[in-house]
């Protein structure tokens, strides 16, 4: 529940949302996420070939790149990779299609796949081999498939 949802503040709700000062301070609350994930797009081209495009992964970046590209993590890993943001997914798929456009063999379909793995429950507090002990992110779920329409890539 956000403060603007409180009955006492409900008359002000529209003004709070208008000014963008609605608040919800839940940094790692009520619990930190217990899943690691990354996103991969499968781009199908006109001739039927498939290509993989990997969404930016923070753990493979250096210190400076992480500073600049943090928004990619926030956007996908904390938001659109999970349910409730379906209206944003076609735009993301279209963006990937544009990035991978080849006029001679354009993309006709983009599928966005989430690869994830749960973080193991700590056992007796001994996890010396971190991060190698983390399981591979092999649970898959296709979160959207977008058929590229004529004119999308113009």
């Amino acid at each position, binding site marked *: 529940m956000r403060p603007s949802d409180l009955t006492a503040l409900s008359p002000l709700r529209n003004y709070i949302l208008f000014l*963008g000062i609605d*608040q919800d301070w839940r940094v*790692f609350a009520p619990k930190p996420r217990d899943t690691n994930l990354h996103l991969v797009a499968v781009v199908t081209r006109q001739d039927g070939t498939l290509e993989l495009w990997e969404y930016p992964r923070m753990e493979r970046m250096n210190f400076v790149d992480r500073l600049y590209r943090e928004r990619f993590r926030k956007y996908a890993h904390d938001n*659109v990779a999970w349910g409730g943001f379906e209206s944003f997914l*076609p*735009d993301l798929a279209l963006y990937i299609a544009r990035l991978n456009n080849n006029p001679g063999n354009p993309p006709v379909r983009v599928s966005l796949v989430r690869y994830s793995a749960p973080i193991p429950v700590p056992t007796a507090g001994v996890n010396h081999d971190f991060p190698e002990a983390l399981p591979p992110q092999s649970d898959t779920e296709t979160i959207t498939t977008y058929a590229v329409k004529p004119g999308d890539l113009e």
Partner: protein
Amino acid sequence: MTDGSSASRRFRPGIVIAGLCQSPIIKPILSDWDRFWFQPQSPLPMALFRILFGMLMIQFCVLIQPDLFTWFGSRGIVSSGAVHSFSLFVELNILNVFPDNDTWLSILFFIFFLGTISLTLGYRTRISATVVFLGICSLYHRDPLLFNAGDTFMRQVALWLPFSSAGDAYSIDQALRNKRAGKPWYAEGEPSSPWVLRVLQIQLCLVYAHTFYGKTQGYTWTDGTAVYYSSRLVELRRFVVPYIFDHEWTVHMFTYGTLLIEFSLAVLVWIKPLRYWVLAAGLCFHMMIDLNMSIPQFEWLMMVSFSLFLYPEDLRKWIHHVANIIYWRFQPDARQTPLP
């Protein structure tokens, strides 16, 4: 039959309230309330906060600029249509006033960037702070999924800054006023009502109070393993800190320590003898997180906000000390004549 005596017995709330305000119980409370919000105070803490916050806002612009069109452009990852269908409310977004194209986006972003610089320098401080608020609010409403809790706090701050005395010390505005008044350029402005400072202090405490309460509702915080999970989010990991996150007792200590520090920053920071100890613990806490986790700007913003809790007399003393060191360094002959 009515007469003057019945009229004089009529209930008059104003008189009752005035009488209550003069009662020996209520009067001191009202006096303290008035002093807390409105007793004139030096603008130094707000000025220091303005400079540090402004620098973070400049950094915000620098970090987001390379992907400006990716995030906010007409052919970016998120279209205006998708955002409009997601949010059903009317929201303040200057970008909506102008055509949805990258030229206008660039122009408005440049104005926003200039606003962050002039806010930091304290030039036309109130106008600059307003520009910064409009900028960050518009970007948020253009693409709300990009922004984290730190950005939310930035919007709160930017909303209140135009009403504050942030430009009354160590600013171009104040230097110009001093020049007109024949004072040294660095002289701070007159003490003024600190109500905006109080609002921001309370806002910061609400952040910690809310997140503390939220954490107490989650089982990993109460069973002491939350820090284990947060340290294993590979996308956030900056350095692999040895030992600390690999042992049960350290994981428990840091999990419960987080709760204790967040509670302290919400409540104990108001107790004068404890304030600097709590702030020091908070600094260590955020630096530790920043060392271990890559969440750009968030930890720095929280640490910068601690300057709101510095007492003006202490701040003045420290600034004077630093200024003297610099003065002596560049004018060795003046070692015996400290700055006025």
